């Protein structure tokens, strides 16, 4: 268990976390000035959940079986992860602006040589299986570590998700919490136009997972869901309703990943 698990959040802590998420959000939006290909929309969808996990739940340590693991299976939200890791002091500010450049540390998708990254991802659908491996290894060794896996709704199209979803139940894991962000968009189109996904929660529940839901942009709602998920005693999945591009009005709730530098500049000056 993390130190603050189960402890009610104070107004101070809540405000602090909100401020962190806002700063991280601004930094993701700013990245567009430096690189015109980062996935801003997908990142803004994940930023509040990542903030809660990294600032309230994740215990980092060199001790692999007694630390908590954060696996960003939707690796294209890397800018959000980097911005929150910057708030943690693990990534320097100038590295944020060098994202994806030839002399920079930060890759387009997470790599384990980047501080704070637990799995190299980028190809969708692989994080949950890896997380099951980590969680199983921790239990075999009697460790206290927990595994958090962040997935997207588009990612649920992958066949490996089914393989992993059913596997986690067979392993009887109680140290695994998955997030599925429901932001309603995937690369080409809205998720409902590509493949309807309304049935997802029902499927995960039918397979044997404890399912929870939250507002993925409301810090309190996210915390409540994690607290409940931890009591599940079996694999738990939290369906988090989010908005693609949350907080960046020029692209909010659309399939757009980014805006032009002019639009971005105007937005940042006026906000």
């Amino acid at each position, binding site marked *: 268990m993390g130190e603050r698990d189960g402890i009610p959040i104070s107004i101070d802590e809540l405000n602090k976390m909100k401020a962190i998420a806002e700063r991280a959000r601004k930094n993701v939006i700013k990245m567009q000035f430096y690189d015109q290909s980062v996935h801003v929309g997908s990142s803004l969808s994940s930023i509040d959940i990542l903030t809660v996990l990294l600032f309230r739940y994740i215990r980092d340590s060199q001790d*692999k079986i007694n630390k908590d693991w954060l696996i960003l299976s939707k690796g294209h939200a890397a800018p959000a992860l980097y911005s929150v890791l910057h708030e943690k002091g693990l990534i320097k500010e100038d590295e944020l602006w060098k994202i994806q450049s030839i002399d920079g540390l930060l890759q387009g998708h997470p790599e384990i040589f980047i501080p704070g990254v637990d*799995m190299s991802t980028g190809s969708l659908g692989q994080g949950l299986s*890896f997380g099951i491996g*980590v969680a199983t*290894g921790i239990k*075999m060794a009697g460790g206290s570590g927990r595994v958090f896996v962040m997935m997207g709704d588009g990612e649920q199209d992958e066949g490996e998700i089914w*393989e992993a979803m059913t596997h986690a139940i067979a392993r009887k894991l109680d140290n695994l919490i998955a997030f599925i962000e429901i932001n309603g968009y995937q690369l080409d189109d809205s998720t409902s136009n590509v493949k309807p996904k309304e049935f997802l929660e029902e499927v995960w529940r039918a397979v044997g997972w404890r399912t929870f839901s939250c507002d993925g942009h409301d810090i309190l709602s996210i915390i409540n869901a994690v607290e409940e998920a931890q009591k599940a005693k079996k694999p738990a999945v939290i369906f988090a309703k989010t908005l693609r591009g949350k907080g960046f009005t020029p692209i909010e709730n659309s399939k757009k990943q980014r805006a032009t530098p002019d639009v971005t500049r105007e937005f940042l000056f006026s906000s």
Partner: protein
Amino acid sequence: MLRGSFSSAREAFGKTLTKLGEDDKNIIVITADVGDSSRASYFKEKHPDRYFNVGISEQDMVNFAAGLATVGKKPVVVDFAMFAMRAWEQIRNTIARMNVNVKIMVTHSGYSDSGDGSSHQALEDIALMRVLPNMTVVVPADAAEVERSLPEVLKLQGPLYYRIGRDYSPPITSSMDYNFQIGKATVLREGDDIAIMGAGVLLWDALKAAEELEKMGISAAVINVSTIKPIDEQAIEYYARKTGRIVTVEEHSIYGGIGSAISEVVVKKYPVPMRFLGATGYGRSARSQRDLLDYFGLTPKSIESLVLELIR
């Protein structure tokens, strides 16, 4: 060489792996529902708490193994060669890219799954594995070399692809005495006029061919290149210089496989004429692996013809 009896590669594999599991409690065996066919289930009998059948889920199996390795376990993924390839991208993007300590050990490679036909016959896997950065690729010649090499390859830290067949395992190294070393080729037979190089069961055909060639006054060396990657450049260059001609043999496609790997060294170090014997298409069903090898012309006779082509 050529002494000893026919035995089973998978039997040797299952038994040796189970024995090694007694000393190393970190070894975990994971399979995608082919535990009995691969003989991985021998491990289950002795070490049930360290054996996982994840079901018919190859992609999940590979990433699951990567997760276990990341927290210090030594996972051995056991599958049919063909179906491990279903998870090539997971092997590429997680195991090899993160350079984690996962051993991928496959049975039923080449034509060894004779009855099941072309869907089950892996003739492309060496090419797919050796292209991956951080990946070591080992193809033991026979059951005896499985017993000899398995303890060594499990000592390696990092990703490894280990390829064996099923029950057809003609005696190639069983009468020999040597220590298996990753990256080191072994000489099965000395010779001056031609070097026949390769890995796996066809080395038996190579030795048969060498005996026939001797009767014609041609002295053929036969080299077991059991580590495809990192390949023994020194041995390949030595025999290229010594014999001036090379024939490669493999139960795998000649495009991108063992012959290709050897030729990459030859053109760089000491170019000599070469011929390649192996598969060029898909397999088919047959009652035995030997029937398939004969059907596709992977025989001592074919090797002799290629040798004569280079010598005349």
